[in-house]
């Protein structure tokens, strides 16, 4: 049987993660697909699009699809490439050209009403438009509303737009979701932490503080009491969000009844930004908030992993990523457990995804061969697809 895995793609400063379940269901969290990364011609960029296509399933007609797409929030570095690489519109109209263009169908999308508030980029607008199309089908009670490609779940509360008539599609912070793409999962679930109502209605709200934050939970067996792996996904959430997450989770006892704060893998919010620890600029707010440090104390085991999905972290560069944030994380998990997507696995000059397999004793980073295979070799399109300049001068 295939194992459950979590893959963190190297997308520079940005997020794209893929959860693959043992039944091959896939949950894509954010996307950051640069056109320049396609084809492997830029050796500093990993071809995330090719990898994604190879990692997800195809239906009986050969149409590639993800079971669930969770957009944590609408910033460009979380939804880049959505418009160009994912199919939008009635799934019945998916054409041969769409297939030739490898457009990925999203069977079920998770949608935060915050996205409806303010679109700042084309990809975010496309996501909102597709969500509204699907919500429209549900409002109209269209017969196709529950078909793959039309499914949708609303995450969190409403902002200015009103989706109260669709509350049956809604999950709010504190909820545990175990049905994905119209299929119940027995050993996988998601605990929703955020966004909170007060953040959506705050006058100073921004996209980051209203990110969807959730905990992905894996069990070895259906009736196990303990989760074998808990992975926290925080979008670009800031220390204010985490303060609220901490207090509300404890207030309702979910820290104990659901282990909702514990983690084995923590995707550092906002690409290893100081904003998780305190306000920016860091120089003016040098001390990390106690609440943020408390969140990190919920790590399990001696070698819990901290993922920094960002470019290489250097002291001189402004955040994100922020070297001071890295130091705080390292002090909690140790240097060997702090994994930067840009530097952790690099083949030639190309960063590689970090992949964890879910074992009964927690996540374990998958071994990836460094070598090519045999003693004999011959190149493929690599060098032959590169323009070569030669000459006597």
């Amino acid at each position, binding site marked *: 049987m295939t194992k459950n895995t979590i893959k963190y793609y190297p997308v520079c400063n940005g997020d794209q993660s893929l959860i693959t379940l043992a039944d091959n269901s896939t949950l894509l969290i954010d996307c950051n697909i640069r056109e320049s990364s396609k084809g492997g011609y830029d050796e500093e960029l990993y071809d995330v699009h090719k990898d994604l296509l190879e990692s997800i399933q195809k239906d009986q007609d050969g149409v590639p699809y993800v079971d669930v797409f969770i957009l944590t929030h609408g910033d460009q570095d979380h939804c880049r490439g959505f418009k160009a690489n994912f199919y939008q519109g009635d799934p019945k109209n998916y054409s041969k050209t769409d297939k030739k263009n490898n457009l990925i169908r999203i069977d079920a999308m998770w949608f935060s009403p915050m996205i409806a508030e303010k679109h700042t980029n084309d990809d975010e607008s496309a996501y909102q438009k597709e969500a509204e199309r699907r919500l429209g089908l549900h409002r109209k009670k269209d017969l196709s509303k529950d078909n793959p490609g039309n499914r949708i779940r609303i995450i969190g509360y409403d902002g200015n737009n009103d989706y109260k008539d669709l509350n049956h599609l809604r999950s709010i912070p504190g909820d545990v979701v175990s049905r994905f793409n119209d299929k119940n999962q027995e050993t996988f679930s998601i605990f929703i932490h955020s966004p909170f109502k007060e953040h959506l209605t705050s006058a100073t709200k921004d996209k980051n503080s209203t990110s969807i934050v959730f905990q992905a939970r894996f069990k070895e067996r259906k009736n196990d009491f303990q989760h074998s792996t808990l992975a926290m996904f925080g979008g670009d959430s800031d220390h204010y969000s985490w303060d609220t997450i901490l207090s509300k989770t404890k207030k309702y006892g979910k820290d104990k009844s659901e282990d909702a704060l514990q983690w084995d893998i923590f995707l550092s919010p906002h690409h290893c930004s100081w904003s998780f620890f305190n306000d920016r600029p860091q120089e003016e707010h040098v001390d990390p908030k106690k609440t943020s440090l408390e969140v990190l104390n919920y790590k399990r085991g001696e070698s819990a992993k901290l993922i920094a999905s960002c470019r290489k972290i250097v002291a001189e560069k402004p955040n994100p990523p922020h070297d001071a944030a890295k130091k705080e994380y390292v002090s909690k998990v140790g240097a060997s457990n702090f994994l930067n997507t840009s530097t952790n696995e690099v083949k*030639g000059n190309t960063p590689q995804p970090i992949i964890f397999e879910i074992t009964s004793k927690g996540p374990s980073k998958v071994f990836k061969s460094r070598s090519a295979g045999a003693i004999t070799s011959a190149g*493929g399109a690599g060098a032959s697809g590169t323009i070569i300049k030669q*000459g006597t*001068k």
Partner: protein
Amino acid sequence: MLFSNRLVQYNGIIPLQIKDAIAEIKQYYNICKLKVLAIDDQFIGIPVVVEVSIPTMGTIAEIDIRPKEPIIIRFNLKLYPEYAPLVLSDRLDFPKNKLSHLYASHKEDPAKLCLVRGNVNEWFAGKRIENFLDATTEWFYKAANGKLNDDGDEFDPLRLDSYTGYHSYRYNRMKGIIEDNVSFLPGHSFACLISMRYANSDQIEKLPNFKSEMPVQAASIDLVLQAIKKAESSLPPESKVIPDIAILVWQGEHKIFENYETELPRNYRSLKNYFHQYSIEIDTILQTLKQHKYVFDKHTPIIHAIKRPKKMIGFDGPYEFINFVVKITTQKKGKIDDSCKVWNQDHIEPFSSDLAQILTNEDRNSSTLFIGAGSLGSKIIMHDARSGKSTIGICDDDNFLQHNLARHTLYADSVGRNKANAIIEEIKQMYETEPRKTLNAYPVSVSLLSDQKIILYNWILDSTASLNVQNWFVLKSFPAEINVARCEVVDKGNVGLLYIEGRNRNPRIDDLINLAYYRALNNRSLAKWRHTDATKEPDTLNIGLGCSSISTVVSDDSISQHAAIFSRLLHNEKDRATLKENGLLFIHSINTIGIPETNTKFEVVPVFDVYPCREGSGWELRLINGLRQRLLKQCKKHKPNETGGILIGICNYKTKTIHVFDTIQAPSDSKSCATSFIRGIAGLPQKVDQIKDSTGGLIGYVGEWHTHPTQLEALSERDKQTVEELRSINQKVPLPTLSLIVTNTDLLPFIFN
């Protein structure tokens, strides 16, 4: 406590190939300096630390594998790279008894990792040190993550890195005896088995092989022993098969044991202790048998059944059988002496099918050294032998096993013997009345065969299908008068390939083998083979236990057909009547579906143009005939402008050779002038990928060529810059970077790692 603390620095001479390997180890682990330790006269060890990915809450099943595991990479000073390196754990407290895929080793010795199923030397012949180190890291990853047993819910057997002879019996029969409790005496947990003892002069101390069948109980043992005695006394002393009794023992309460044995007994005292751990008193069992008139005057085979928590890999039950032979030599006051020797034997499943062969008679007068006496080789040898060829040498270090009976020319009475010895003996027996000194068996690895022996022959035929032997052939120098050929059967027996080198070893064997890959582009049989090869599962079927019993399923008649036509061709071309100076690629295809069809195609292959790297990197460029002229013409045609393109072929890191079979000329978007050439890309990646697909991924892009009509016989500054750019792209494959400069009169290859 580290094993390496016991070792001292090695100050002797390190062979060049091991130096290269050490350089690769440094590069892999990104360290500047490595210690070289002396293990003994034969081995040196390189200590390094492997980083292991461990689940965040510890290893699966609490196995004591750590995030940083110290290891020693052990090299054989004389036999590397034919003998692969071995990985030893440097930790003397390594959890040897908790893990599979370890070779059994003495308590004080470090754990020895079994990295691959099958023959590790053969696997390594096709790999680089980088692959070996990857396999090592993967071994630790699997150990920490509970994935060492690839077969999931099945139990991996104990690895024996050495054993003496075989004990043949049906697994399911032994399992049935235990499950049905067919014990020798009621209430006991052992059975007596009627066996056959096969005399074996090849083994140390003439330790026999055994074949065991049905159980015999106490009530009838008297009669059986009498019958054995009678048979023994009536058989002539040289008789090779003698009836005997074997003993099968198991733990009476059917307890399950998970641990692996780290050290197997070597004398009777340790055997008693060994069985005692399993709550089995072997001495009591033997004394019970003695009371039933069992006589301790010979080798006594004992099979120990260990019940495992899961089904054994490859077998239909949870019992792992460990086979011992005790040579009960002395007795004091009726007791068995503690110092009696004990050996381990391998278990093999018996084979019962008959073989049939039709051979023709013909006189043949060339002298041939056969490397490999497997199914294909043995049949060609016997064609020659039955035709009266008087000078035959056979080099093979392998023993003949039961499952070889399916396709080999030898019969069941040779089971357990060295193949080379056994075949030569068969041939000698054919010519009993005229003993010949020119029939020689060399029961050693080909790399150990001395030049004095090789020069006795004017033909060498390699039928091993071994990459290790192929590499040895490529790197070996032979006298000019020796002809070299190789044959192999591929694509499940559907295609047979015979390669004959040209005179003076040009075209060489690797030129011809790689040419066969390239010809898949326009030969349907080869294309099917390359496709099947590229898409097959990497792991092969295990027949029998252990790491050295991999086999493929090919019918005997297919092998015979290929053998027959190869034999005919080699005989007809013994004086190179058709070939003259050239080499040969001969393809024999069989369609076995319906009414069988056969088809032959051949290509007489002229000499390759050979160029050493101009930079002295040790790499060599070998161009198929005709390419040189084609490239020189291009230079003239485009003069005064430069032109260029890419080279299509294959490179081999072990022999440091690039074979080129074709060129692709400047794509349409290329630009050129008198002093520069910009090679475009229009349609090029697609063309290369199509070639790679059609050849099973083996033939593809291997480098760039461009012309210097100004006759500049060096890389220009621009060229050097381009080489650097290409190197970073090629390293991903990996591929050496080849820049071939074509002047008006010559080709100048520059090859960089």
